[in-house]
């Protein structure tokens, strides 16, 4: 906070003007505690508030029908930029952005292309999924106390939906790229808020030989990480760096920088640089990535992962977002 204060006092005049710039954020029904994109978007918003001095506000939607109402509320109150989190809000954003052409909108994880006042942030999470997959595939060849001699890894997904599946698809391809014999177990719990079932799902995979489990399951994933810790195997976090949850267990995390996207869009809009249409966040523009691995991961593997990252960036490797059955 001290830093924030000093940075604030540095640009007080700027801030006075920025204060008139109002940003509203509408979460989807997952709410701000989803340990996923709603939370990250909120963090981006908070960052913009403290660093740019904009006025920021948010509403958590309780049901589907709240989307239109909440977006409209912000637009009516002359918010400059309204952020809609989640592809579930696509229809709502299309409708409200038409009614309020002077308001700018950002929608996360969607693909609205035909509106001058709507930006759609799309994350190439298959790319970061691929990288952690490469890391997992290579780790399978390593030997340490956490790794068994079976060549099996697992992914626990929440619901079987595109933002989840793109991660999983990338992970599958990444593993296979470096270790074609690895068996990749894929399971879904059917929810994002039941860590108890996440834990049992992970334990099931571990019992089937998995010694690295990747989760793409929001709060359900808390249970996956807990299971990995309990069974002394590795976990891979998702969306944000989740190493803090189990420092020796979470070997890395696949990052989807919704916070960055949110912050950048706010900044651009503030500076009259708002770009409508599809905005891709990928490895090339650092919109996705992987978190710093723990020291169990040898440097050689990290180097290899970075090699693959470069190949993806320069287009030599194209990662599909379709899960292999």
């Amino acid at each position, binding site marked *: 906070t001290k830093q924030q204060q000093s940075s604030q006092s540095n640009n007080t005049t700027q801030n006075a003007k920025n204060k008139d710039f109002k940003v509203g954020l509408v979460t989807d029904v997952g*709410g*701000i*505690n989803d*340990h996923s994109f709603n*939370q990250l978007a*909120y*963090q981006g918003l908070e960052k913009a508030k403290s660093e740019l001095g904009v006025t920021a506000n948010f509403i958590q939607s309780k049901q589907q029908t709240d989307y239109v109402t909440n977006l409209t509320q912000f637009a009516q109150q002359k918010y400059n930029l309204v952020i809609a989190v989640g592809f579930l809000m696509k229809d709502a954003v299309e409708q409200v952005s038409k009614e309020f052409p002077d308001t700018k909108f950002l929608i996360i994880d969607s693909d609205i292309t035909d509106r001058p006042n709507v930006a759609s942030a799309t994350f190439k999470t298959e790319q970061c999924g691929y990288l952690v997959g490469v890391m997992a595939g290579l780790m399978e060849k390593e030997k340490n106390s956490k790794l068994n001699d079976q060549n099996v890894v697992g992914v626990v997904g929440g619901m*079987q939906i595109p933002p989840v599946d793109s991660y999983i698809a990338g992970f599958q391809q990444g593993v296979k790229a470096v270790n074609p014999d690895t068996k990749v*177990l*894929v*399971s*879904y719990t*059917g*929810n994002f*808020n*039941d*860590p*108890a*079932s996440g*834990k*049992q*799902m992970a*334990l*099931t995979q*571990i*019992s*089937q030989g998995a010694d690295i489990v990747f989760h793409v399951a929001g*709060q359900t994933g*808390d*249970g996956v990480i*807990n299971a990995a810790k*309990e069974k002394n195997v590795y976990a891979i976090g998702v969306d944000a760096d989740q190493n*803090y*949850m*189990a420092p020796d267990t979470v070997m890395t995390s696949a990052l989807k920088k919704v916070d960055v996207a949110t912050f950048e869009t706010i900044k651009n809009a503030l500076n009259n640089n708002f770009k409508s249409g599809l905005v891709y966040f990928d490895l090339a523009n650092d919109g996705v990535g992987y978190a710093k691995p723990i020291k169990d991961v040898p440097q050689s593997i990290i180097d290899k992962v970075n090699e693959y990252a470069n190949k993806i960036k320069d287009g030599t490797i194209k990662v599909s977002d379709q899960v292999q*059955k």
Partner: protein
Amino acid sequence: MKEILLNPQLWSATLAMATPLALPALGGTFSERSGVVNIAMEGIMLIAAFFAVLFAHLTGSAWLGLLGAVIVGMIVAVIFAWAAVTLTADQVILGMAINIFASGFTAYLLNTIFGFSGTPTDTPMLPNIDIPIIKNIPFIGQILSGNSVIVYLMIILIFASDYFLFHTNLGLRIRAVGENPEAAETAGINVIKLRYLGVALSGLFSAIGGAYLSIGLLNSFSTDMSSGRGYIALAAMIFGKWTPFGSFGAALLFGFATALSMQLQNSALSKNIIMMLPYILTVLALVGVGGKSVPPAADGVPYTPKK
């Protein structure tokens, strides 16, 4: 299939998934046996799950976390009892109100106390217990040993509850009050007090179930983590014909179906079809068993003592 059935994880997952159903189902048995329909178990579990983490974090002891959860859970149950028994309010509406309240209240406290990134990772967990001798038996040992202490507590509680309900005077009185409160009153029994007791016990068991979710299986709280288990427990209790062993049996069936659906995830079937398994199996079992479940005669009917 044989491979799946011989995987000890199938059976330990069965036990693990049955525990947070069996505990509230057991609680519900007490409440409904005394004549109060307690749909608030879902909310009580959630609140207890939160306070278990909070107290465990504050005191550094998972046991004190469990104690705190149980106390808070019972307080909520007693408030429910006050409205349902003393004020003779509609029990189902009250239950729903508490569930809505609990969802908001825990999320609110989570955010104000711990912020958005969740509960502290150094929160202590209740221990897993190794059972000597059994633990060395192959297969069986992997299933029956090394579970959370709450699993063993639950098993003890089931036997104790059965004993309490069917072999003690208080148990007899609770059942009498749920069947015919007027008759119980004329036998000199204090109907109101016993209904409070029944509801308080349901709070106690639901709270243990909630604590199991947050500091038994895990060491964290997340929003709405009870995930409807309080409702399914209600079904398990009915399926179990309002008896402790029956409730446990129904919870095990449900836990087994859930565990099986986890094992089947790698099959070619659609995951969403597989996930229907626990629910379909329950209906089939119920219809197949010809499960005529007759609730206690005065279940859900408020009683006003004569004046």
